[in-house]
């Protein structure tokens, strides 16, 4: 049972984000790529927020976001991308997939914590 699913192929980023969110009272589970993310989301209906990288092996974050809506038919979970990408075309694709927001790395926990807490309520 977790409130947040953190999806990133980099253990450095996973650890950094997880440690910060846990230290601030959120429960977090992790996935190493988009495919793993879909599996974890299917297995844990309590997840309210997915924070995901875009560029990952096996399945990228935008494809995962599209599949969350189209294949899992999950319209309620909030998806936020945390990525080095800042392209308008990618953001448009994300919007079309129903993602909630976009963060350009590096991660700045203090800047987003309040919003994350609202999104898991």
């Amino acid at each position, binding site marked *: 049972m977790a409130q947040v699913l953190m999806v990133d192929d980099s253990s450095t980023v996973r650890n950094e984000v997880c440690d910060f969110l846990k230290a601030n009272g959120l429960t977090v589970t992790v996935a190493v790529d988009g495919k793993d993310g879909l599996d974890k989301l299917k297995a844990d209906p309590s997840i309210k927020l997915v924070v995901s990288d875009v560029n990952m092996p096996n399945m990228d974050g935008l494809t995962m976001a599209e599949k969350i809506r189209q294949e899992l038919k999950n319209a309620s979970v909030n998806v936020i991308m945390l990525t080095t990408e*800042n392209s308008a075309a990618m953001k448009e694709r994300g919007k079309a997939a129903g993602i909630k*927001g976009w963060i*350009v790395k590096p991660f700045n926990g203090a*800047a987003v914590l309040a919003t994350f807490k609202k999104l898991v309520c």
Partner: protein
Amino acid sequence: MALSHDPLLVSKVLVLDETDVHLDSLKAFCEECALVGIRPQRRGVDSVLTILHSNVDLGGILLYENYGATPGAGVLLAREIHAARPELPLFLRRDTVASVAGLGTQDAAMFRCAYTLADLQQLRSTLEASIFSRVYPNALVRGISEMTRVSLETLFSHCEVEVETPYLVKDRIIYGEVFTLISIESHWCRGYMMFQGEEPALMGVIQRAPGNEDAALTFRDLNSTLGELTNLAWGAFKNRYVGENLDWAERAQTQVPIVINHQRRFISFGSDDPQLCFKYTLRERGDPDAVAVPLYQRFVFNLNWSPADFKENASVDSLFDSGDLELF
């Protein structure tokens, strides 16, 4: 004649020459040509080869024909150097004749040119063609350096990050034990970016990072950190210099094999063009005994290089600040 390459860039050359009088002239010439001269402490083949093993970022070698005060000894040394590092251009200084006349065909082929101190014009133009053969835009060189420094400061927040003057290298030797590689694709350049570093020193740095002191870290943790550094630097490069809406299908997506020789720590991208190199030094704050830990970043634009088409994205100034959440 002034060299026309980017004034922000230098290149390191190994100077194997004789008396101080000659060395002083060469030193002045090097400064004029944006070259950083390195001299061995001792003469002899072993000393030179030791330098070659410890310096993996050279642009070339200036060698005197009678190095070691022995007639023809420089040519014998050149054979050893050429066998060890054929990618490094050799420039032969002779006493009176500014040509390779009199050398055997194979020996002559080792040198990019021969020159005399009385006339350095030949050397100057050959340096231009062999080391400074590519023009790297100032904005690109500055931008890469700034963006990568910020990425390093993010990942190594307990360290000061110093950046050396960027330089061009002809070497193809891999520095240290660990390196990352990522492709760069744009309408004006195609190639790769690498980071190279020493595993033990970098492991020490991440082990002493706040929160990691008692963690049992392995080389995989270092891999992950360097992977994320590469990702951050690559993302910043893309966001700043790579345009959108490119019709990649219309572009010839050529590739060439990348060859790595582990025994020789050698990596080839199939191009002899000089690589753009940045050296960053990490030094842990608050530790007077902290050692400087170097990290090298190299750019190899071996598949396409069209600097005339280079431009920063118009939206670069209005990009959403890194770390902030842009809600849709």
